[in-house]
């Protein structure tokens, strides 16, 4: 490795969905790419076995991290037990305990594959409703890239259904939605008379064989690992890029960035697991290390010419940290619902994604969680001290009647919600841990009052007993805002092409660019933005 020349047209830091899609797009254009990731490569079969071998306590409480072994040179968050890699502070610290995976393929190894487009108004929140911020681009600017991402990932969606509100489309989804299981079917029927439209979630999951991957077989383990690869993961795009000549280096932890007189990026340096340093050079650099690690690296890599951090002349790097603060509810329904048929996230209530109320409080998404209840049912029944037939009957009853629902809230960009480098905690390489201070704000708190009423209305309509609702806000791993997009270099980090205002040849292809969080999962939007950034890079290369 030491003698190998580490250089390419484009160096991409982070082999998650954004970095891998950008690498693939560039590789297809004949551009040489070096794709680095701080974490290891994973073997799907081993991760599946790691999950199967995980204690039932972890399974019952939705532990998505433990199957992915933490490596000391690239720690990611674990919560069973909590490893405090991500330090969270502030009034809503609970709501920023994000789950991220480091390694080739990134956090889409354990996502639910919900692949929504944002609504046109999500891109112009400030100009339409007078709150939050506008993107530097419109929905129409992103529409072709949304479609390109949907095709590459393999997204199924409710073709032919008229769902209001919906993002306008020029092409149908590449695949039709998967059919609901009994739980989603009954939930939809029960909430309909209450005025809630429960509709199919667009999913990055095969509803038919697609792109050499199999059709979903309903293994119901999307999070934390699809055992058969019917669900899209960033690893597929990374592997395709690799087949086209992209060089992938795993276990490469970038820690410093060199700039020249024009503040162009000249080189980056990474540590290998033995803390040997390696230097990589390129014409153009992309950081696609997710919404937490990207601002962390930019701050860490501060140099003489950029004393507040790379790309940070605006002081906005690490600010405006957003997500979708959630409220979770679980209960036993009066009738059997039988969660667990199909994928873990099939449908949701989207009536409240947009409307004039957004000038006052958050838009929301209400969802039915279709995760099988059998682990939770078993552990609960055992804790009751039952034996024999009563034990079996109680397990079956709880597996049939257990219901999980949730509300996710839109948050506004707030510069005080800020990621900094920890002054006290460092990892094995001596790199500071990220530290986030988080307050969901009045905009969310006001919405949460009615959100709790929505949840209670639904629980009551289902004859719910043993109703439990989280008294705090929960995280949703939809990490946005930390390298925020805008037209003004004084108050934003990147432009509408994700190009850093401060560095002509640096792109930050992550959800951190998203200027408003909307209500729905952020992944498809960040994927589309990454493809758009790749387009800008291709254009640069052509004109170079």
């Amino acid at each position, binding site marked *: 490795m030491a003698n190998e020349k580490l250089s390419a047209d484009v160096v991409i830091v982070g082999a998650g969905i954004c970095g891998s899609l950008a690498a693939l797009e560039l590789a297809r254009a004949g551009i040489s790419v070096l794709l680095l990731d701080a974490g*290891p490569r994973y073997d799907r079969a081993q991760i*599946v*076995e790691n*999950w*199967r*071998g*995980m*204690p*039932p*306590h*972890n*399974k019952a409480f939705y*532990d998505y991290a*433990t199957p992915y*072994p*933490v*490596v*000391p040179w690239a720690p990611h968050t674990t919560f*069973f*037990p909590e490893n405090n890699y991500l330090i969270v502070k502030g009034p809503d610290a609970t709501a920023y305990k994000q789950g991220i995976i480091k390694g080739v393929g990134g956090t889409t190894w354990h996502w639910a594959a919900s692949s929504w487009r944002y609504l046109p108004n999500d891109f112009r929140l400030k100009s339409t409703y007078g709150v939050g911020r506008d993107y530097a681009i419109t929905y129409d600017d992103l529409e072709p890239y949304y479609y390109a991402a949907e095709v590459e990932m393999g997204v199924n969606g409710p073709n032919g259904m008229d769902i209001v509100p919906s993002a306008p489309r020029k092409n149908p989804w590449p695949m039709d939605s*998967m*059919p*609901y299981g*009994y739980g989603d079917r009954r939930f939809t029927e029960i909430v309909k008379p209450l005025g809630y439209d429960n509709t199919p979630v667009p999913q990055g999951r095969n509803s038919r064989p697609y792109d050499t991957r199999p*059709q*979903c*077989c*309903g*293994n*119901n*383990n999307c999070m934390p*690992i699809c*055992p*058969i690869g019917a669900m899209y993961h960033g690893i597929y795009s990374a592997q395709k890029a690799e087949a086209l000549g992209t060089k992938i280096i795993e276990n490469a932890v970038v820690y410093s960035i060199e700039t020249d007189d024009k503040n162009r990026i000249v080189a980056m340096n990474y540590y290998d697991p033995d803390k040997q340093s390696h230097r990589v050079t390129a014409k153009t650099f992309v950081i696609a290390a997710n919404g937490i690690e990207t601002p962390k690296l930019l701050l860490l890599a501060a140099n003489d010419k950029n004393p507040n951090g790379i790309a940070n002349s605006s002081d906005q790097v690490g600010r405006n940290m957003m997500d979708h603060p959630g409220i979770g509810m679980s209960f036993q329904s009066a009738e059997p619902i*039988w*969660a*667990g*048929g*199909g994928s873990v996230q099939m449908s949701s209530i989207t009536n409240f994604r947009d409307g004039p109320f957004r000038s006052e409080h958050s838009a929301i998404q209400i969802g039915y969680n279709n995760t*099988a*209840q*059998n*682990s939770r*049912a*078993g*552990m609960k029944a*055992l804790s009751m*001290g039952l*034996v*024999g*037939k*009563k034990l*079996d*009957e109680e*397990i*079956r*009853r709880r*597996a*049939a*009647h257990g219901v999980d629902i949730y509300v996710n809230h839109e948050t506004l960009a707030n510069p005080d919600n800020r990621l900094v480098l920890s002054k006290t905690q460092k990892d094995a390489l001596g790199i500071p841990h990220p530290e986030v201070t988080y307050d969901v704000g009045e905009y969310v708190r006001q919405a949460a009052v009615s959100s709790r009423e929505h949840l209670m209305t639904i629980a009551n309509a289902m004859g719910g007993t043993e109703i439990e609702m989280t008294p705090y806000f929960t995280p949703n791993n939809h990490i946005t805002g930390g390298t925020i997009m805008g037209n003004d270099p004084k108050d934003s980090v990147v432009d509408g092409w994700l190009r850093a205002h401060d560095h002509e040849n640096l792109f930050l292809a992550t959800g951190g660019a998203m200027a408003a969080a909307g209500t729905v999962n952020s992944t498809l939007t960040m994927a589309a933005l990454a493809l758009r950034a790749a387009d800008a890079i291709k254009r640069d290369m052509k004109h170079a």
Partner: protein
Amino acid sequence: MSEKTLMSRRRLLLNSGISVIGLSLLPAIASPALASVPANDALSGFISFSRLATGHNDLDEKIGSQLYAALSAKDAAFTDNLRKLVDMVRGGAHADVESLDAALTGNPLRDTLLGIIKAWYSGVVEEGTGATVYAFEKALMYQPARDVVVIPTFAFNGPDYWVAEPNPVSQMPRF
């Protein structure tokens, strides 16, 4: 915890099995309890008692062997308590676990009984996140709903199986 330790803790052992893959996980360093193979009669006594304790005859003996070793290692009094329980059911004194459980009201031996049941149902003998897993898909708690709800990571019979109407809750599958 280092990757190496974690991975070796999760080292996989494949049990023989025809229709399903059996798996178990052993600690990186075999504990004395796991190293010592239980005497055949003690183990068969445990399995035999477990059939009554769980109400299910189709118990995997390899899993049983590991559970017996783990329960013995966890509690020095386990083998004595098990012997007392076996004595209680000798000669058909209790036809089923319900009868035995009722007879154990207020008796500390009930904890041993529930511990055995919990081991077979949950596949672990310890609480919480550090537990060693001896059984997953053969853990009995996944069986009462297995006709409708998949054991996660496994599948029934291919795509779209889930559109079928579920069986009644009252219709307990045989296992």
